[in-house]
């Protein structure tokens, strides 16, 4: 059991969906950074509210069987979001803060890998795209290359078997394999 917990301690240990009850403040940004992040986010939300409100007010429709029509609800929501964005701008509260340097590059490599993998999903097929995704992600998580390779091959084979054969999901085979 000792090895069990030693290994676990090395894992990610994410505090899933529990920000509001976090027992430590170690992941919080400094008050100045929090304020800056909060105000930036509030301005983005305000811009979204204005764009959404304008978009909502010009929705085209021929008729509506109710007196409100399809425009009123989006416009009301845009107003509410605009007011909340102003409130948020005035009291931005605590933010977690963004990673920087090498960690930021590692974190952003996850969505990049996902985009590459999904772009290859139909042309190259499920197995190839999943192999690339799982290999890249494992290396991002600092797995030893040999283990990452073995893990990626295992993932591609396992999930292909589970979805194609057990669950009968029609997955793309890819041009390489005659799909």
């Amino acid at each position: 059991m000792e090895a069990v917990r030693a290994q676990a301690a090395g894992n990610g240990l994410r505090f899933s969906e529990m920000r509001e009850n976090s027992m430590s403040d170690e992941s919080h940004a400094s008050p100045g950074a929090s304020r800056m992040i909060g105000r930036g986010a509030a301005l983005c939300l305000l811009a979204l509210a204005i764009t959404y409100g304008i978009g909502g007010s010009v929705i085209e429709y021929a008729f509506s069987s109710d007196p409100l029509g399809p425009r009123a609800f989006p416009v009301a929501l845009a107003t509410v979001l605009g007011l909340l964005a102003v409130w948020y701008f005035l009291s931005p509260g605590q933010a977690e803060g963004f990673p920087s340097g090498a960690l930021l590059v590692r974190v952003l490599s996850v969505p990049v890998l996902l985009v590459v993998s999904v772009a290859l999903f139909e042309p190259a097929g499920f197995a190839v795209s999943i192999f690339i995704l799982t290999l890249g992600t494992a290396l991002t998580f600092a797995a030893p290359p040999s283990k990452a390779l073995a893990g990626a091959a295992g993932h591609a084979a396992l999930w292909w078997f589970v979805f194609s054969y057990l669950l009968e999901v029609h997955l793309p085979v890819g041009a390489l394999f005659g799909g």
Partner: protein
Amino acid sequence: MNLEYLWQGFSVTLTAQNLLIGFVGCFIGTLVGALPAIGPINGIALLLPIAYTMGLPAESTMILLAAVYCGAEYGGRISSILLNVPGDAGAVMTAMDGYPLARQGRAGEALALSGLASFVGGMLGAIGLALFAPLLAGLAIGFGPAEYFVLMIFAFATLGSMVGSQPVKTLIGCTLGLMLATVGLDATSGAYRFTFNEPELGDGIEFVVLVIGLFSVSEAMLILEHEGRGVTVIRELGRMTARWTDIVKSTGASLRGSLIGFVVGVLPGTGASVSSAVSYTTEKRISDTEGTFGKGDVRGLAAPEAANNATACGAFVPMLTLGVPGSGTTAVMLGALMLYNIQPGPMLMVERPEIVGGLVASLFVGNFILLALNLPLVQIFARVLTVPNWLLVPGILVLSIVGVYSTHASVFSIFLMLGIGMVGWLMRKAGFDMAPIILGFVLGRVMEVNLRNALAISGGDPSILFGSTICVVLWILAAAVAVLPFYLSRRSRRRQQIAASTAS
């Protein structure tokens, strides 16, 4: 009281297929709960498209998802006690006394005792659900569109004031969810809203795409970011059974925790994180006469564990009877029902008793399965903590992609999920919780339809929204729930100031 639905439910649950589904759900749920990387919402979000693709009937899918939910509440305690890292939000308070007990060499006892407390909470919560759901559904049958609209306002007010320390972020999350729900074809007028001429958005943003994007993709990025944070490791498990004296000592705490957990769970929008915190602080106030809480007191372990399991059951009450989720996880389950074109609400009990009854009955059966799994097999579940993240996270990402693809067979949907995941990550970094977005999204269409129906009935007169006693009561409750926390925090600040000035 008519409990016929429950007997019908047992006949649904006690079939070989559904018992197997329940067992698999309990097992997966406990694993999901034990892993700090994935919470119950992630587990359910990843399993939902698989269950749908397998062609399971709605009642079996709900049994599976409920089993995962309850299993995760059991499993969350394992990493709380062994690592001081809660496996899910409801297990935060479990670590307060569970981890000190483990450090005293009593980890095995703490796991066994918390397993029993979870069982007590789960069973009492299931009994409360079985008794309370028909009463509330009977009351809600009288609800018209205006009452429903105001009920949803009440749900958002509760959420804004009870979830998190920053209500503005919760309310923004709800509003964004409501906005996302407006994308697509407006059934009443035939107008396309916010589709940007993209045919795949004609039916709106698919629920599976949103929930997997928000929870799984952003979670994978956060796991990477938080990887390697040090924790103090517990070396010894000790004896694996609870002492009789500890069981007797913690019985009152378990019962009180169950009651608090169920009541908090019934409130729309609150969840296990709130109930476990309330039950722990209540128990501390009642029982901590010797200052042992936080140092390994079994009552401090039992109370939040019983509470978070009772909350899981309580959260089903508003979901099944009113169509308003009691927690983030039940919001996802509500979305699952909608995937089957089933409209939740008071008529669900009348029209589809096999779903409501099956789910409630499965909670009773599931608790016995979970107790059986969690007492003797806890060492096996503890071993899942050895799965390294470089193996686990790629699996989550594959399930996310294939989950969306298997439901919609469209690469556009996967790209949309990735975009939503990126926005989710940015929002989480800014301190936003994702559950309110899901809640807003799930309730969005129903809320707009009810508002428009109410105004259609009244010929455009908005006074219909204040026209019945139920509406007025709900408005008053919503206002009270929205204002009360501000009043209480102001009063507490004033008291602290007075105390500080007196002391100085």
